[in-house]
């Protein structure tokens, strides 16, 4: 009979053991006999030290003690406290050298997670291989392996895995005991059978630590001790990978084999073309473009006449000018031909735009293949038979302007009067062509009418002839008609005229005067404003003026054509409208092909004609869905692209806008100065005299910079001789200047040559690189780069592009259609979104733009309703302003005045806030908001916004100046020039006063120069005169000031650039008219749609 301690295998055992060790601590290191109940978790521990005497002493402490005896293999445990004895029929015994090793492990429920697991198995079995294979399949190459040898020399293999796969532990536990799995938490040296826990892990680990050992405790409590440190290896060290496959060895040898590879043209990204090869007829198609282009723009187009196997061909080329918008798109639109683009890396090789050479060849191979070195230009054309190489040995290119000095279209009134007077006063006048034309002009094709005033012919020479008889009545009639035209034109040029009768009358008169194109524009206007169903007579007049043909054959031919010129598209549209109006609608099949053509916003016809075709048909068919889709297509196109100056502006309106301020008899000096390039030249000359009044000292760097800057301006306006005069002294004294200045002078001279030759941006970048690189000393080179990067003329476009490429970083999630935009924008602006403010602002912008492009007011309204409540979640105010501007754009387009009002108020509050970091985004937002309000007829809100912003005091002076300049520009754009002048005067005074720091002053000066582009020339000169006089105040203390005055140069550049710019002012006036027309067109579309849909 032995005395023993009864343990239940539950949490209460902990208290039992604590009491035992407190009462008899010497028992901890004694040898114990352990008896395990195999049918339950209980165990009994006996020890020699635990005798009757000790048992008597321990009993009062409440310990569960019993006597143990064996009866026929049954263990009988009689509790010393009394009670029925326990009988363990199935039990096991073992001994343990100390108490912690005698304790039985406790089973844990479920599959507990452990920090690390140790899988132990015999080395000679299959188990290690299977385990390693499975671990590698699970991607657990971080496992480590350990090998053990026991005292008998038997080998064990163990795999140690952190965050072990629970599947493998369960498999080991559930298996037949082939693999034992142990787990541990942290870095404990006590490894316990997985799914079990030791009742006293702390003392057990401490015991191991004292002996510098680790132990593996199996589920019955047996301890296997090992040294604390194990020799571990990576799992891959224990794996010998096998691959049963035949092996072949190959070695490389030299080879001269060459293969024939056909070079072909493959699709590429669409880029702006650089040149066009035109037939004589195609060259004449340029007329509409020539009429609306400024002299500055035309000077960038050159023409060369070529002859060869294909007869006469004209080479039209655009001289690209850095920083100036390309004309290529307009040229291609006008001609209806795509043109050719330069191949990167080959200066004189051109391929059709949107195509590229495939495969890409080395430059030398390309040269040899196409003979690039022997030719001036090589153009790879393409037709149905494949590519053709057109080699142009040499060309004599002349500016297009030289071909078109035959008539002054913007002096049409004088021409008209001349013609009228000629009937009465100079009946003997006739026209004689000079014997030798400077350049033979192509012949007009016989199929087109040839109005005298647009004929591309050399200057006529007026000579007197003998008097002839005249038809006085006809002349009087002609004069009366012209008077009538002038009166009617005056009425419609104000913009927004929506009286069909006026337009029809104007159209009839113009048709009688033989001006078919303008008559067609007027009839289109009349039809549009009358609304469907269209008057058959009027539609017939439109078709006649457009030279249309409503036969089935012609319609089908135009509809199925793969490409249509603008004239053909107009004819098709007019003919369709006429057929429908005359109750002879074309076949449904034909209309199914035609409708998508006119729904395409890229079709080069006026939007009013496109709408007339669609509305006329759907009204006839009573197709509500159709007209709804048409409305969305046309409005979406307008939202996305706006109206086109080329297609939506009647030609005589363009002329009138170019003659701003002109009256029948007198022309203001201001308008005259603004209209002609000479005016700009006069202004620039005046400014030059102002600047050089006090004399320009020689060998003086600032004087040289001034000469160079003005020279570039003169060159840009075509006065190259004067430009050369200006720079001659600089060229002579070049060597006496400091090295950085020398390089900068060269850069300006290169710029001058570049302006004249019209090289590409790449050529300019290379030129700049070459000159900058010529300065070897890094410090001096830095001084050159300092100005080169800040100057608007010297910087390269790559720098501008890299700045521009920072935009549009937000991408809509894939697969989002317009119906999902509201959801996207709501998610982006919600509070919980974890993204940057600039991305949220861009998300709002992108969603609004996409919604606008859908043309559906409902979609736009839904997106705005989702976006507006969350705008306040954009913390950075400048980004919030951008999002607000996007919403103003949307709200103005759907006519939600209440929302526009709220958003404008938000914008003003942002401007007033002290937390506004930078005004740059606010200015951008204001400009966008104003543009949208103007387009959608919101002049009053626009005025309100400007007035509110003019009262805002920005946080910093530079922001204030930027904001004021924007406000002034805004006022001048909405026609409030008086207010704009006041704001600008204040601004000029502020900039020139001494209260600003020099950086802010320079920024202010640049902002004013930028804003003044929107003013008439003479006003610009007046303001700039003050700047030139006070140029000395634009000083700076930059390191480079030892060589030059950065700010003075930049201000001077801005002034000259502004004076040489006529585009901005012209486009302001055109845009003003287009805004009014767009507003009227929108109203008409909605009215027509409502008439069909009953809403």
């Amino acid at each position, binding site marked *: 009979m032995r005395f023993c301690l009864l343990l239940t295998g539950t949490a209460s055992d902990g208290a039992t053991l604590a009491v035992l060790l407190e009462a008899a601590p010497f028992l901890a290191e004694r040898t114990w006999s352990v008896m395990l109940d195999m049918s339950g978790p209980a165990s009994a521990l006996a020890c020699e030290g635990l005798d009757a005497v000790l048992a008597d002493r321990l009993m009062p402490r409440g310990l569960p003690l019993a006597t143990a005896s064996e009866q026929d293999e049954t263990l009988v445990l009689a509790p010393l406290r009394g009670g029925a004895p326990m009988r363990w029929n199935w039990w096991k015994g073992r001994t343990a050298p100390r108490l912690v090793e005698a304790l039985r492990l406790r089973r844990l429920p479920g*599959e507990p*997670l452990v920090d690390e697991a140790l899988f132990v198995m015999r080395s000679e079995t299959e188990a290690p291989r299977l385990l390693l*294979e*499975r671990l590698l*399949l*699970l*991607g657990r190459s971080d496992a480590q392996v350990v090998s053990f040898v026991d005292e008998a020399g038997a080998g064990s293999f163990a795999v140690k895995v952190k965050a072990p*796969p*629970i*599947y493998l532990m*369960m*498999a080991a536990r*559930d298996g037949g005991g082939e693999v034992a799995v142990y787990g541990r938490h942290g870095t404990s040296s006590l490894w316990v059978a997985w799914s079990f826990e030791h009742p006293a892990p702390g003392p057990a680990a401490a015991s191991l630590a004292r002996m510098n050992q680790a132990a593996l405790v199996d589920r019955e409590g047996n301890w296997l001790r090992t040294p604390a440190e194990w020799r571990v290896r990576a799992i891959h060290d224990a794996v010998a990978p096998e691959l049963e496959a035949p092996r072949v060895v190959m070695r490389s040898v030299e080879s001269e084999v060459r293969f024939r590879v056909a070079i072909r043209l493959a699709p590429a990204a669409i880029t702006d073309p650089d040149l066009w090869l035109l037939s004589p007829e195609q060259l004449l198609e340029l007329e509409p473009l020539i009429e609306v282009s400024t002299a500055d723009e035309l000077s960038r187009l050159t023409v060369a006449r070529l002859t060869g196997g294909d007869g006469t061909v004209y080479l039209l080329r655009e001289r690209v000018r850095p920083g100036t918008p390309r004309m290529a798109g307009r040229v291609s639109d006008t001609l209806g031909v795509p043109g050719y683009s330069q191949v990167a890396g080959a200066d004189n090789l051109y391929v059709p735009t949107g195509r590229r050479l495939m495969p890409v060849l080395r430059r030398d191979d390309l040269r040899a293949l196409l003979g690039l070195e022997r030719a001036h230009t090589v153009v790879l054309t393409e037709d149905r038979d494949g590519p053709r190489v057109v080699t142009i040995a040499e060309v004599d290119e002349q500016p297009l302007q030289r071909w078109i000095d035959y008539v002054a279209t913007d002096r049409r009134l004088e021409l008209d009067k001349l013609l009228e007077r000629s009937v009465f006063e100079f009946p003997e006048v006739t026209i004689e062509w000079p014997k030798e034309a400077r350049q033979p002009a192509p012949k007009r094709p016989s199929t087109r009418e040839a109005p005298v005033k647009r004929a591309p012919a050399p200057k006529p020479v007026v000579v007197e002839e003998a008097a002839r008889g005249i038809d006085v009545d006809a002349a009087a009639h002609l004069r009366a008609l012209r008077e009538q035209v002038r009166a009617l034109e005056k009425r419609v040029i104000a913009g927004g005229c929506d009286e069909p009768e006026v337009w029809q009358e104007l159209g009839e008169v113009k048709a009688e005067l033989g001006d078919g194109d303008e008559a067609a524009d007027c009839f289109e206007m009349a039809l549009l404003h009358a609304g469907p169903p269209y008057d058959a007579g009027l539609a017939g007049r439109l078709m006649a003026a457009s030279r249309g043909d409503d036969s089935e054959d012609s319609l089908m031919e135009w509809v199925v054509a793969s490409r249509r010129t603008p004239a053909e598209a107009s004819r098709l549209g007019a003919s369709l409208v006429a057929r429908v109006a005359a109750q002879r609608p074309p076949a449904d099949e034909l209309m199914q092909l035609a409708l998508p053509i006119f729904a395409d916003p890229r079709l080069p016809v006026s939007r009013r004609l496109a709408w007339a075709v669609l509305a006329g048909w759907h009204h006839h068919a009573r197709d509500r869905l159709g007209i709804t889709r048409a409305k969305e297509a046309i409005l979406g196109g307008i939202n996305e692209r706006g109206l086109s100056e080329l297609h939506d502006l009647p030609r005589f309106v363009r002329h009138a806008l170019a003659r701003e301020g002109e009256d029948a008899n007198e022309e203001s000096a201001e308008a005259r100065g603004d209209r002609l390039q000479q005016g700009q030249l006069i202004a620039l000359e005046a400014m030059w005299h102002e600047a050089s009044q006090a004399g320009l000292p020689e060998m003086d760097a600032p004087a040289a910079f001034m000469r160079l800057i003005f020279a570039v301006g003169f060159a840009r306006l075509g006065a190259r001789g004067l430009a050369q005069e200006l720079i001659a002294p600089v060229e002579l004294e070049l060597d006496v200047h400091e090295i950085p200045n020398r390089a900068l002078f060269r850069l300006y001279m290169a710029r001058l040559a570049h302006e004249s030759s019209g090289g590409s941006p790449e050529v300019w970048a290379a030129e700049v690189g070459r000159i900058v690189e010529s300065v070897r000393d890094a410090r001096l080179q830095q001084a050159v780069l300092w100005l080169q990067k800040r100057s608007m003329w010297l910087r390269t476009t790559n720098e501008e592009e890299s700045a521009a490429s920072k935009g549009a970083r937000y991408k809509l999630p894939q*697969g989002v259609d317009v*119906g999902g935009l509201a959801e996207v924008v709501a998610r982006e602006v919600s509070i919980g979104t974890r993204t940057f403010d600039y991305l949220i602002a861009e998300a709002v912008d992108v969603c609004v733009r996409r919604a606008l492009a859908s043309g559906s007011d409902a979609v736009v309204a839904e997106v705005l309703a989702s976006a507006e409540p969350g705008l306040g979640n954009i913390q950075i105010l400048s980004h919030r302003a951008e999002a607000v501007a996007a919403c103003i754009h949307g709200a103005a387009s759907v006519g939600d005045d209440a929302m526009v009002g709220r958003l404008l108020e938000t914008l003003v509050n942002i401007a007033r806030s002290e937390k506004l970091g930078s005004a740059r985004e606010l200015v951008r937002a204001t400009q966008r908001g104003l543009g949208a309000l103007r387009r959608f007829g919101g002049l009053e809100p626009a005025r309100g916004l400007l007035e509110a912003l003019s009262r805002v005091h920005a946080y910093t002076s530079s922001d204030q100046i930027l904001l004021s300049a924007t406000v002034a520009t805004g006022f001048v754009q909405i026609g409030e020039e008086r207010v704009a002048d006041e704001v600008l005067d204040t601004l000029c005074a502020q900039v020139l006063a001494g209260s600003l720091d020099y950086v802010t002053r320079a920024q202010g000066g640049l902002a004013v120069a930028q804003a003044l582009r929107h003013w008439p020339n003479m006003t610009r000169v007046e303001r700039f005169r003050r700047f030139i006089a006070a140029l000395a105040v634009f000083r700076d203390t930059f390191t480079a000031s030892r060589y030059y005055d950065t700010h003075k140069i930049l201000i001077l550049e801005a002034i000259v650039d502004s004076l040489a710019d006529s585009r901005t002012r012209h486009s302001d006036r055109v845009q003003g008219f287009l805004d009014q027309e767009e507003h009227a067109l929108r109203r008409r579309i909605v009215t027509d749609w409502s008439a069909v849909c009953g809403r």
Partner: protein
Amino acid sequence: MWTLEELEPEIDDIRARIQQHRRGLKEYFVARDEEIDLAILCAVAQEPLLLVGPPGTAKSDLVVKLTESLGLGAGDYFEYMLTKFTEPSEILGPIDIAVLKEGRYLRRTRGMLPDCRVAFLDEIFKSNSAILNTLLTILNERKFYQDGQPTPVRLVMLFAATNDIPDQSELEAMADRFILKIETKPVKDRHFEELIDAGVMNESYRASGHKPWTRGAASLDDFLKLKRFMDLSFGMGREPGRDRAQWFPRPVFAEMRRIVRALETEDKVMVSDRKLVKLYKVIRTQAFLNHGGAVQTSDLNLLAYVGNRRDEIPVVASKVKALLGLGG
């Protein structure tokens, strides 16, 4: 309804016919064996199947051909593409105006979802909450509410497709109803030629109005009978654990438990209690369908399709295959 005694003599023939049906269907697709196996299994087990994948991966084609091959009668098949603007009446049938005048709110379900036997709902997660709630009731309880009264539906097979499973909590309940979800991937990279050839043949069939797959070896009745047989056999023992003891060997069952546990603890895949029970039955059904007997370890490959979220599906599939030693 069929009794066990009626079904037992012909059940092996039914199994063989369905197997042949499956093989026949595979001839019209390229590398879609996995999807077809699952679709057939779900059709037998009458569990809904969700096909997840980008457009153009034969999701609709697969379901349409399968349903056509079953020789369904008029009005037995219902197919609809859901959008957020789809109204319940487009799925459940319009309100009966004549009855509404009497103050009762009944739908005319003829030819609509409640009246059909097989349904295919495309873009299921794009539908609005009104439809989703109705679908939940239909999937759970095989009934829907007419004028406040539960009315049984005839639907036995539901297939659904989606480009994506939106990560929105309100859609979790619906996603959980689909015990099995499979990702359909483009196969053109691996089967370029076969895809072109099969595509051309299919276009030719379509142009000629010829549908050879409609000559399926099995009929809808075969599928219903096998389902009935399985239902009866699940309850044969009339004591808990009997079916498992007889048809699910302990090692295989332990393996299933291990995999489910691993997916839950390591990949946080939610396997609800309801889903676990249904999984058991589907695995059993697959085992019976494929080899007519007890479940084998290879049948546990169905666990590869229990992923719930879009990003989970490929991870779970790969993990289960690795655990089963089938390669990652």
